């Protein structure tokens, strides 16, 4: 299978079940909402080192937010139920609570599993906090020097999907980067999907474990490193001199598939030789995204 002359390998991306929450952060301006969201989702690229994965899903116009102010939607994922509230409480408390003008709302109101994030953060109010029930939902008003920080008492949690991916194998680094940027642009704002890595792109794809260091849970994906082609069992075709990976997390499989479809099509451009995907033989993750099926 080829798209614009780019070979699509007959393989699949292997992804994992994660726990996901969606936060709606509003501010007096989109800029302030984004400031909070950027801090909240900072250092949240991979559960390997960050214990969570997070990113901005999309910007929200005034009419789409609970308080009628501009905002951003953020997806936040962890590997298990227990660590999601832990991460949210610490991060929201340090990044959204602290950011001028912001408020924080639940973006998964129908999810039956509820995380008591606002309920935990309310004690910052030192007894001066107050709650309000509006439309059946409880909110906490936490007094701060600026005025008040408003946060919903609980946030919904669903089973999500983490680790959707595809790899761009290109003739050179410039072509790989241009293709990755085009893919990210095509996927930005896709509902239910985030790209947790810097600019949505990963240059340091990893394999499980290490050939040399027993304490490492992940090390460089040498089979796809062009500089190691002569000394490892490389999986790179002839002519490939640079590889970049796109990792996708989301609320559900169909959302990730739709984003992968748009991203891969955008990445098929001059200088790109092959699109492939990372997997572990299908033994680790229950979600398999077959590239040719998605694009077919």
């Amino acid at each position, binding site marked *: 299978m080829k798209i614009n002359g780019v070979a699509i390998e007959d393989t699949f991306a292997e992804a994992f079940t994660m726990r996901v929450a969606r936060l709606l952060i509003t501010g007096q301006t989109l800029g302030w909402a984004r400031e909070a969201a950027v801090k909240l989702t900072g250092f949240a690229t991979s559960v390997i080192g960050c214990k969570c994965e997070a990113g901005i899903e999309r910007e929200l116009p005034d009419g789409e937010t*609970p*308080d*009628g*102010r501009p905002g951003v939607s953020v997806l936040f994922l962890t590997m298990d139920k227990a660590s999601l509230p832990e991460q949210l409480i610490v991060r929201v408390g340090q990044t959204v609570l602290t950011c001028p003008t912001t*408020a924080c709302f639940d973006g998964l109101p129908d999810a039956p599993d509820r995380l008591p994030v606002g309920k935990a953060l309310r004690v910052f109010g030192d007894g001066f906090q*107050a709650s*309000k*029930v*509006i*439309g059946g939902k409880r*909110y906490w*008003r936490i007094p701060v020097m600026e*005025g*008040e*920080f*408003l946060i919903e008492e609980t946030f919904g949690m669903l089973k999500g999907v983490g680790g959707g991916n595809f790899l761009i194998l290109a003739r050179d680094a410039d072509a790989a980067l241009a293709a990755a940027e085009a893919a990210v642009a095509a996927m930005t704002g896709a509902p239910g999907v985030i790209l947790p890595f810097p600019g949505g792109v990963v240059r340091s794809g990893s394999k499980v474990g290490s050939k040399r260091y027993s304490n490492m849970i992940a090390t460089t994906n040498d089979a796809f490193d062009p500089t190691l082609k002569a000394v490892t069992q490389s999986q790179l075709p002839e002519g490939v001199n640079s590889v970049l990976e796109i990792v996708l997390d989301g609320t559900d499989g169909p959302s990730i598939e739709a984003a992968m479809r748009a991203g891969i099509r955008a990445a098929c451009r001059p200088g790109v030789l092959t699109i492939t995907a990372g997997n572990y033989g299908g033994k680790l993750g229950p979600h398999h995204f077959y590239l040719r099926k998605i694009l077919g």
Partner: protein
Amino acid sequence: MSDAVTLILATQPTHTLVADCIAADRFAGLGATAIAALPVVHGGRPATLGEFFRVQGERASVVRIEGDCTRIDGIGTGMAEGELTIDGSVGRDLGLAMSGGRIDVRGNAGANAGGAPAGAARGMTGGEIVVRGSVGDEAGARMRRGLLVVTEDAGRGMGKGMIAGTVVLFGNAGPGTGRFLKRGSIVALGEVERPATFRYACTYRPPHVALLLRYLGSRCRLDVAAAQVTGRYERYSGDLAELGKGELLRWVGA
């Protein structure tokens, strides 16, 4: 079972009619005959609901009352869920000690709306009351939770002794508003006389008020000005003769 129960006022009461049997959740399990047989008190004498109202529909927790119920007291007493709409004005004790559901009055309400029964410590403990008109004295008195919204003016002592909850008043408030308030919020969009035992804190844009007013605009279809949603409010803490954890929020413009 029908989608809604409609009570049509067929015989205007000649004296005060206490109809505290009218509550949306109570009608959910009753047929039309049983609804008509519910007891009321007319001028101090026992009677039945069917002597005054024609009943249409049965076994529904969505209830509509048609007619001028100014002489009818206690509508919605103890209501726990469901929707009760009154196309007209009602007497005193609307939603007395209710704990859930929504009451929507397309007219005025008498005294003690959302309040407590005589001698009881707590008024309404949940739910929402929207009065698209004015209310009498001591509306929301001793309320513990819930929301009371009044689109026009209120009488004396609105929110008196409130324990918690929220009162929103679009019109002018009578004297003694918020007196003995322990917790809770009174949002005043019109003129209000601040009790001496309330102390000014600051002028700011309370985020929960924006959320609440947007909710009232979308869910209850109330006319809420954008300047009220995004506007500034003076915050008075009180009643300092009590706990002092309550607030009077007075809108001062955009």
